């Protein structure tokens, strides 16, 4: 068991290292370099050389990679030439905003999705299922920017209950952020719930048809106990990885939602970084996204291990 977890961790670290190399090479392959981007297409001669030697861009690529990696391990993301600020400062508050938004959507959306999925499966092909599945698929099909715009026009413009767009500084206090994100959270939830709910529904339908559920009902178990204690834990197993992927998707900053609501998150930052040709920032964000995906996948694996005794032990006939 411990060995298994240690192996997963090791693989996660190796993946992370591989990603850092790929990200570095990818940015390296872009035409021009950070100084060129900073000084503009026309820059030539002494100024460019000065800039390059100042930022050590004249060193060979492997040396720069090692330096970058060394900084990363010490927790130093590096410096943005363009913005003339430490990257950590630039990314920090934006990423915090994205995490607040994403977590709120996850906390609201995931239990809702599981609940709806289970209900849809229990009332399969009946009214409740048809309504839940129908609405969920509708929400999933409508693009986020339409959902968001509709919500803004109804709740923000027409009813005037909630602020239509977010007007705040990137480093606003948490409470101010929370009061601003009701509509974006609803938008994200609507999009995300359908995926997870459909998965839980399918998996639950399979489990409800299995022998141990039939046996439970022939053992005299009340329906709710059968569903909660026997069926649901087994039905969730296949959904765990999907849920982790959805959280990772949220943590990556859903660009469209951030743009529609003018929300200062990591998604908008990454697009700006690309537009500004801020190489160091692009590199840092890419690595951040990768580590989020890797760690959430690792987390999903560990949760699966925890919930599924068949994976945990090697003894017995399995």
């Amino acid at each position, binding site marked *: 068991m411990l060995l298994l977890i240690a192996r997963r961790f090791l693989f996660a670290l190796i993946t992370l290292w591989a990603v850092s190399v790929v990200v570095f090479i990818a940015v390296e392959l872009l035409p021009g370099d950070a100084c060129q981007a900073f000084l503009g297409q026309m820059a030539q001669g002494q100024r460019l050389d000065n800039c390059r030697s100042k930022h050590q861009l004249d060193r060979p690529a492997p040396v720069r990679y090692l330096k970058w990696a060394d900084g990363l391990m010490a927790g130093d993301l590096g410096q943005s030439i363009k913005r003339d600020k430490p990257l950590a400062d630039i990314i920090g508050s934006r990423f915090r905003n994205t995490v607040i938004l994403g977590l709120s959507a996850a906390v609201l959306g995931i239990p809702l999705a599981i609940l709806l999925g289970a209900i849809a499966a229990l009332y399969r092909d009946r009214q409740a299922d048809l309504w839940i599945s129908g609405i969920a698929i509708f929400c999933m099909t409508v693009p986020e920017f339409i959902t968001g715009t509709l919500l803004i026009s109804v709740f923000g413009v027409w009813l005037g209950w909630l602020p239509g767009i977010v007007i705040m500084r990137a480093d606003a206090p948490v409470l101010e952020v929370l009061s601003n994100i009701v509509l974006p959270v609803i938008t994200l939830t609507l999009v995300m719930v359908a995926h997870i709910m459909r998965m839980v529904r399918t998996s639950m339908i399979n489990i409800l048809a*299995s*022998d*141990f559920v*039939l*046996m*439970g*009902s*022939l*053992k*005299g*178990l*009340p*329906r709710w*106990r059968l569903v909660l*204690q*026997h069926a649901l*834990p*087994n039905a969730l197993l296949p959904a765990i990885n999907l849920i982790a992927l959805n959280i990772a998707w949220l943590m990556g900053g859903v660009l469209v939602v951030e743009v529609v609501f003018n929300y200062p998150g990591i998604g908008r930052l990454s697009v700006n970084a690309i537009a500004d040709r801020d190489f160091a920032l692009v590199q840092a964000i890419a690595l951040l996204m990768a580590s989020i995906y890797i760690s959430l996948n690792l987390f999903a694996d560990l949760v699966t291990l925890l*919930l*599924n*005794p*068949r994976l945990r*032990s090697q*003894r*017995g*006939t*399995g």
Partner: protein
Amino acid sequence: MSGSLLSINGLSIGYSDAQSRSVAVISSVDLSLAAGETLGLVGESGCGKSTLLLAIMGFYKAGLHRLGGDLQFMGEDPGVMPAGDLQKLRGGRMALIPQNAGQSLTPTMKIENQLFEALSLHSDLPSGLWRQRCFSLLDRVQLPDPGELLKRYPHELSGGQQQRIAIAMALAGEPDLLLLDEPTTGLDVTTQVHVLDLLREITAETRTAMIYVSHDIGVISAVCNKIAIMYAGELVELGDKNDLIDNPAHPYTKGLLDSIPRMHQDRLPVSLEGMQPQPGQRNFDNQCVFVERCSYARPVCQQHKPDSSTVSARQVKCHLASEALDWKSVEGSDRINKPTKFSRVVLRVKDLSVSYDRPSLTRWFTGRQPSLVTQGIEFEIRRGEILGLVGESGSGKSTLLKTIAGLQKPFAGSLMLNDQFDLRHSVGSRDADCQQKIQLVFQNPDASLNPSQTVEAILARPIKLYFGSSDEAIRQQVDEILTRVNLPLAYRTRYPGQLSGGEKQRIAIARALVAKPDLILCDEITSALDVSVQASIIKLLLRLRQESQLAILFVSHDLAVVDVLADQVVVLEQGRIRESGPVSRVFSDPDHAYTQSLLASVL
């Protein structure tokens, strides 16, 4: 019968088809059971026996409902009880022991919690005493070390242990009626004997009544004192065990009994021609349900449905019941006629051992030997010879088969085909000639035939692959092979889904035959089939062997089938050969203790 525990009168269960007509799956079943009585319900797959069993618990599978009749358990009808009462009844006064205990236990819950749950639902014990009660229940089902066992998850137990847990769980509510749905079907024969002994003890001691559903009359007769035979949703015969087995009154019972292969007999089992009608396929309101397959049928059988009549203390649904008692078993069944002389050796296996361990660096460094699944295997098969490979699960039968087929590389030893091809190579690196000369037939034809190909496409594939014949020649060969396996030529255009289990297995055998192999490997090819169909497959294999001088390696856990079919037998246990030799010698005078215990487990 007054004071009976369970009484069923004219019970019919069915579903509504697309035209909203009622289609009966079970029709007019009459049955009664007194306290302490044990009844075996026997029938082939699809006869409705499980449906009847579940209906007794007030459970109907999706779409099924009661069409008519009356069912009373201790004066109450489970089918119309309020949900709360039904939950008290199920697992309480009436408990089910399911077919596949491994899959009937919730995989994410410890054994302890699942047993506690049963106690919390169906006993008045305070929760402090549950553990103690569990200990005594596990002791009751002869499971040692209960403290350790309770902490485990279902997958950490063996099949026999899982089945015992299921029995313990059923006993938790101290039921008056135990319902058993093929509880030993997935178990090894020696484990099966233990479980049956246990069941017999429990019913004898506690005077619990029991309904035992099985397709296996041998199992039933080991535990029950009454037997009911079901066919196409009807109860065709019901009577005392010995009486019914010794002298069956219904032609179907006779046919069923004649089709079972038995040890030490000189005649082949006789197959029942035709197929059991499926629900809704035909209307049996005005004729006997068995008429199509009955070799004694008279005109009256096609004009009137027989009523249940009592013939010599037995309930029989047959117009001819009173005379049928005097009929002897079907005469003229073929004698077993085993050849004694064989020519050259087809397959020679010498000192073979197989390991599933993959080569790894750690092993290379530490010099640790890989663990061997089979070891020191030696045998030969000659032209026209059938070799039976027997043993329980985990004995290495399938591993050997895979190795010969080239799906698994051997660790050491030699394997030769016709003293010409080295079979140590995996199937991909063997010559086309060598590949063609060994063909496989799998256990489950549903899984081994491509459901989206027609029979012709399935059979044409190996011909094209090995011989590259012209379309015309292929057509001719397909016709020829269909005739050889006794299937109508019209089946050429059918899909596997349109065939019965036995027909599908014939196609699978035909597919192996068109390659003109020297050796056919058969992996439990009759165990997924009903007995009456099994008999016809046995007959087919014997005929094919004689016609083409085929060598057949027949893997099976069923000793009686091997006894009837094979010339030589190899007994495997834990990857080693315990005994081998001519079937007649090994099965009548076994040397090894393991062979003896296997033989003792045959029911």
